């Protein structure tokens, strides 16, 4: 690692007090003609010079430091362990070094990120920083170091030792949720297409018609009634789902791990896994303040699920909150959807063909102006596609930061806002658009039910 040339050592305010003490000793020695004070003063001067040399030598040794990192963990809610290995290959120790691991402020850290490091010659040291995972791509680093002498008279500038890197955290699809989806789908018979056709699921019996496959004749019924009947199977249904996220920065606000986006990511992750297991086609398009992310075509199976997870985990909170910074973040976000509605229409047109597609739009009240959406929905419904809009009631996502009485008081205070959001949802519904209000405690079952009702 080569350091920039202009890194230098500065004096601290302690140094000025130190100089004052030295000056006083020398002055007393001169005034009192006492050599002891003078000797002490001179010794302190020499000590100051030595300590300066100490810091400079350590600074020059930094370029020989070898640093590496590794990351353990990749799911939201889990502990993400980031380790840095410092390898001092020289014979010069690096002592009293303050090391700081910088990171995005949108990731919650549960351990220290600042360390006092003493690196002995020809030795290695590991420091660990632990985070609680959150869906998205998060910046870890840079790793900075400040060198000081033991008395704190000198201090280097903050030196970047290791550049930043990014950690990708995926939404978690717990088995509990998956089991619920599967069991719910089976309990209400939603896993069947209920259409006659080639398949493996038994649907019903009917009279034999010429041309029917002889292997499907139910001989038991013939033996009993003398009537030729055949088994009719259920048609294998192939679903096409497009997950469309159109979000302002409000989607990313809320209690850690419980923002509307994170909830949506979990939902989409679970649903896409369910859909992948059924070999249905699915893809995703995401328009957020920091830009547009897309998968260019529909896919089946595990690959489609992984592609969707990659898109979901690609969001960068720092980019989102920078790109929609004050003063009028709402207006910017509205501008995002408003000015890009034509772009969205074009992208969707490129993705979907005339085959009917279930389009699930996840959006928030700020990004979704009713009039602007109407244009999009009209286009989509005009193509024969089914559209469902899922809107999180953002006022409810902050409650998690409060408990008991304060939580109840908050609910009271924002009740009007919640009603406004619900009114918006009613307006969508009055326009004939299937709209679901998402709450923090939203059950995935209801979403799954929507998917399955679409099948018919």
């Amino acid at each position, binding site marked *: 690692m080569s350091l920039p040339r202009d890194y*230098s050592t*500065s*004096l*601290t*305010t*302690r*140094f*000025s007090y130190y*100089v*004052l003490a*030295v*000056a*006083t000793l*020398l*002055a*007393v020695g*001169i*005034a*009192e003609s006492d050599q002891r004070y003078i000797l002490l003063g001179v010794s302190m001067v020499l000590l100051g010079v030595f300590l300066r040399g100490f810091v400079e030598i350590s600074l020059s040794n930094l370029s020989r430091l070898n640093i590496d990192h590794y990351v353990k963990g990749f799911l939201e809610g889990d502990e993400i362990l980031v380790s840095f290995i410092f390898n001092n290959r020289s014979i010069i120790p690096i002592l009293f070094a*303050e090391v*700081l691991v*910088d*990171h*995005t*402020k*949108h*990731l919650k*850290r549960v351990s*220290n*990120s*600042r360390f006092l490091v003493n690196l002995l010659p020809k030795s290695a040291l590991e420091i660990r920083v632990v985070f609680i995972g959150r869906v998205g791509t998060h910046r870890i680093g840079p790793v900075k170091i400040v060198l000081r002498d033991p008395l*704190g008279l000198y*201090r280097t*500038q*903050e030196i970047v030792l290791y550049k930043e890197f990014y950690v990708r955290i995926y939404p978690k699809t717990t088995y509990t949720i998956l089991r619920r989806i599967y069991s719910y789908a089976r309990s209400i018979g939603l896993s069947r297409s209920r259409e006659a056709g080639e398949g493996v699921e038994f649907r019903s019996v009917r009279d034999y018609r010429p041309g029917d496959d002889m292997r499907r004749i139910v001989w038991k019924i013939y033996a009993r009634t003398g009537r030729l009947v055949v088994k009719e199977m259920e048609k294998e249904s192939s679903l096409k789902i497009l997950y469309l996220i159109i979000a302002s920065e*409000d989607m990313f*606000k*809320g*209690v*850690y791990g419980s923002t509307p986006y994170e909830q949506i990511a979990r939902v989409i992750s679970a649903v896409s896994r369910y859909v992948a297991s059924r070999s249905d086609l699915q893809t995703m398009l995401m328009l957020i303040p920091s830009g547009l992310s897309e998968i260019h075509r529909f896919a089946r199976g595990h690959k489609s699920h992984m592609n969707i997870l990659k898109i979901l985990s690609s969001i960068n909170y720092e980019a989102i*909150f920078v790109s929609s910074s004050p003063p009028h973040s709402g207006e910017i976000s509205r501008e995002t959807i408003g000015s890009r509605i034509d772009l969205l229409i074009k992208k969707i047109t490129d993705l979907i063909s005339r085959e009917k597609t279930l389009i699930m739009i996840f959006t928030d009240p700020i990004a979704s102006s009713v009039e602007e959406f109407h244009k999009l929905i009209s286009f989509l419904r005009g193509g024969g596609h089914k559209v469902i809009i899922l809107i999180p009631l*953002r*006022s409810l*996502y*902050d409650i998690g*930061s*409060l408990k*008991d*009485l*304060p939580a*109840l*008081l*908050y*609910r*009271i*205070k*924002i*009740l*009007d*806002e919640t009603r406004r959001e619900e009114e918006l949802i009613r307006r969508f519904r009055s326009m004939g658009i299937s709209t679901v209000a998402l709450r923090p405690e939203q059950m995935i079952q209801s979403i799954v039910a929507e998917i399955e009702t679409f099948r018919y």
Partner: protein
Amino acid sequence: MKRRDDPGRYRVRKIKLVSIGLIIALFLIALLAVLEQGPPNTYLYIGASPLNTGRLGTSDLFLYTKTLYPGTQLVLDWSRVFVDRCSNIVIVIISPETPYTDNDLSNMEKVLRKCSTKNFLIADESTISNAVLAKIGSDLRITGEILVETVDQYTNTSFLNNSSTRPLVITRDTQNKIFYVYPTIDALYPIAKFDLENRSIKLRLDIASRIITLNSSNLRKSEIIGYVNEIFIANKTDLGENKYIASTSSSEMNGHYIAYIATLYTQTITQPSSIVATPILMISRDNILISQSNVSIAIYEDLGNSKVILFSDGSIFLNQVLRSSYNSLVLEIYRYALNKLCGSSIDCIVLFDASKYNTIDPYNAIKQPSSLRLIPMDQIIAFFLAKLLHPTTWLPLVVSWFNELVIDLLRLSFMRPLIIILLSLLFSLIWLRRETAYRDYVMEEVSYRDILHFEELINQIRKGKYILHKKDFINLYEYINETLRSYLGADLQSNNLPRILSVYGVSREFSEKYQRFMNKYYERALGKKLIHKLTPVLWSRVVRRGAERTLKILRELEKNLRRDLV
């Protein structure tokens, strides 16, 4: 001293301590070295040195020579003369004051060896130059005697009327012979005749001597350039203060003049009423001078590879003569002599000897008014300035004065701590004046903070800085009403609400009280009756009480509903 919190935001001034410190250290070392050397040795020349710009110097002659021959050099030390190979060299010596040592002569010889022809122009009334003449093998010598003009010259009318040339006394001896008495100093300078190639020049000499030839039978070529007719030749010892020449006005001994060295006495005659001093002239007939004719004062001698032109009077080349009306005559003689030695070549190297002259300390010069008159004032000022500015003159005094001051100050009881403080501050300021010190700080860790939709409201609620209004009570009522309706199928207006709540663990009594409370204040909040509008209600307290009771109910409901679901 500046203080900053973030060094990165401010440019750090680079301190050139090393270079400044080095310069200061070198300066102090140089100062000490100069002090150790002692005061400057400043000397003034008052004789015929070419470095003397006064009346009695030959600086004008040197400069004139340089205009004739650009290769002219001053020689301050014969061991440090650097001359390349040359064809023609002339050494000019005018009235040296200190003798030539063997070292000088051998160094001179080394210099001359580099040149093919070596010539000398010597003008000296003393015997000092004889050493040089002997070294080069010349037969010419200067006797050192002083030439005194015969009185005959001074008895014509013009001289008798001139105060500077008038005899001191005109007296008669017993035989009634007239004697003219002149002081030996500053009088009776002889008139010499110089025969140059084209013409003759008459020039009055100053204190002049005569030239003799050691071996007249030598076949070397020599030529008399200048001579004096009928002149007295006196020893130096015969001349001086209180010494006079008494001479007759006409020649007495075989056509030669006679003069006597006379001493003047002053005898005091005491008369009854006064004291009168009369001069009495004592003429000593033992000390007789007989004039000689055709005494050589300038001779040219050809030694083969060397030529010598010798003048027995260096005074004619002094600045006072060159600055007088005799300037042109003297320079003509000088040019003639140089030309005879250098030839027409402009490349002739002329070495002007400046090494054999006495110097005087400026301090001593001041003490001797007679010397002071001879030295130009600008030289005196320059020398005194050099003395004054030298550190040995003022530095020890300053240090001593400062030392005394500090000691006196330290004797005062209140000064000691004050001095210590001032010294400390001064030292600190000097060291830190150009330094920039920064406040040390630890690097700040990044902390996570929830970004909430209604952050301001949540902060207010957390800090307890909120005000609850009637509207908030209405919201509370409607919220709990909706919740109860959706979960229990009964709302706050239902009569069987207490019974239903009791199933979920809420006591009937509490439920009834709660229902009454909520409905009562709801009506008041809506203002259905006039009295409700007139009666003031502390809604903040009411809302809080209602919320607390609602919370209790919700907790029981949550507990029991969860139990049911599980």
